[in-house]
């Protein structure tokens, strides 16, 4: 129970004082609403020509309809749901690796730290897109959301592992860690009780950053036709719009819908990240307690 009341208090404080959080709150609420609506969607996104094609936005079809006879509003609902799902899955996969690598390198130190970090820095420096293009080119056709999430997750951890390691290193040097050791606590207890409140903000911030990165990467891969184009996502929406030369044909709403949804989703996540990140930063909490 304690954590839920703490969460509500954070939301209340942020809503009162931080405009970034207010915008994020509205945007993400809209996205989640749309995602929830997919349950009651009258149309099956994989079926085409269920509605008259190329209708501009109207009350009946808020986002208009596309040349494949699909209602863009419901199609984008499924697209947002799948993109969000992909983001969460990738973030989960890459968190596991990032925390594992970050904590081991940070805590063990010495040779293991140097070895892990030189491998890690190589992955950070490496241009990921060409490699992903190669990989998804070979897996074309069998690409599903979980598989793409796994692939993106395998390439999304090095930057975050660096940040987590830096945080752990700084905590190791602080003398309250030694006080905890000499109080007879085991290292697991120390990580959970002493270091977690400092590591958590970094993990939270990198999770959201990773979601942004992975959904963005999916858009790029889908636009090149390298992901499963029958599955509605923000990327495949743009892919089909390009495929049918939507811009040239003047069906601007076909392209406007995914672009607007993408901007709302990305801005919402980013503003959530920057406002909450500032709030849960240990330094702010200390100043709040009058430290």
């Amino acid at each position, binding site marked *: 129970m304690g954590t839920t009341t703490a969460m509500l208090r954070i939301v209340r404080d942020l809503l009162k004082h931080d405009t970034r959080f207010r915008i994020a709150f509205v945007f993400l609420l809209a996205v989640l609403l749309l995602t929830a609506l997919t349950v009651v969607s009258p149309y099956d996104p994989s079926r085409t020509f269920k509605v008259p094609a190329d209708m501009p936005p109207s009350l009946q079809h808020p986002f208009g309809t596309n040349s494949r006879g699909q209602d863009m509003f419901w199609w984008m609902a499924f697209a947002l749901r799948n993109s969000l799902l992909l983001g969460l899955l990738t973030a989960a996969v890459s968190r596991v690796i990032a925390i594992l690598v970050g904590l081991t390198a940070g805590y063990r130190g010495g040779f293991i730290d140097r070895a892990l970090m030189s491998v890690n820095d190589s992955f950070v420096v490496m241009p990921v897109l060409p490699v992903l293009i190669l990989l998804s080119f070979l897996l074309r056709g069998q690409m599903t959301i979980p598989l793409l999430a796994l692939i993106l997750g395998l390439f999304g951890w090095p930057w975050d592992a660096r940040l987590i390691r830096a945080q752990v290193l700084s905590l190791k040097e602080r003398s309250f860690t030694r006080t905890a050791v000499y109080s007879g606590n085991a290292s697991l207890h120390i990580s959970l009780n002493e270091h977690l409140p400092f590591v958590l903000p970094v993990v939270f911030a990198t999770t959201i950053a990773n979601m942004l990165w992975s959904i963005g990467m999916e858009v790029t891969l889908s636009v090149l036709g390298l992901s499963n184009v029958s599955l509605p996502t923000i990327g495949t929406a743009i892919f089909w719009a390009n495929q049918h030369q939507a811009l040239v044909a003047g069906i601007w709403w076909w392209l406007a819908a995914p672009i607007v949804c993408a901007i709302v989703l990305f801005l919402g996540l980013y503003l959530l990240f920057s406002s909450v990140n500032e709030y849960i930063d240990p330094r702010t909490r200390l*100043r709040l307690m009058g430290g």
Partner: protein
Amino acid sequence: MALLSVENLRAYYRTEIYGISRTVRAVDGVSFELASNEIYGVAGESSCGKTTLIKVISGTIKPPLKVEAGQVRYQFGLYDVDMLHIEQDELRRNVRWKEISYVMQGSMSVLNPVRRVVTTFEDIVDTHQIISDRKMFLEQMREHVNKLGLPPEVLNLYPHQLSGGMRQRVAIALATVFHPRLIIADEPTTALDVVVQRGVLQMLKGIQAESGNTVLLVTHDLAVHANVADRVAIMYAGRIVEEASTEIIFNAPSHPYTQHLIRSLPMIGDRSSKAGLGGAPPNLANPPNGCRFHPRCPHAMDVCRTEVPEMIMLEGGHRVACHLIKGAAR
């Protein structure tokens, strides 16, 4: 005429985050005067407001610090100027470094890490007087640094190549490049070893004795004041509680806080047991009213808890703010 006089200065830190606003009353009614040709020491413990006092006097006032009331008057040639209200650019052009210079808290990172020492000298000198002949300027700097006992090749080194003691002596050389009439030294030797500290303080004393200017020395280390300062002011929780010549402060202090401080100083050769002082310095966000020392004062009376003691002038320039002492009001 006093070189610098601070009258009833109040400076607070106002912060407000997520709806919680706090006001820390760091300096709360401080008045004192600096004469020329003297070393005036300001002693006080952590959170007594001495660093804030220095920030206000040296004009580096940035939010959340704000001056609430009071004046800082500097005797500038014939007329005296209220430093808090003169226009920034004028302050920068004629007062900064030419009249008042500054040796910073001994945190050693006073020099720009990516510039050679001589370039920092050039930056400061060039701001106040155009360097027409660079060769002559370099010669003057080498001579200035040499006179202070520093090897001239220090000039073309980078700060990270100098030891702590060297960096602090370079900072003093920088502060004296225009032979200012007032040097403010904020904890100049806190981070130094005792032998290097002795050398740096002797250098500072030598400069003051030779040029007859005024040094405002701020440090928590009373033993340093005993060996360097001519007069000492003791600060507690944002106010000056006692001010007198060094001899009086160490041999015949009147304020209970000063008495306790002097008594509790360990000295080689004296193993007699010394008492600690109970409690802790007050939190300046909501300080106790009346005399702010009353919660820890062994002689606290009722009046101490309600009324702020007036600064009373005893003989020989000895001022003290304590209800125990009755004398002519300031």
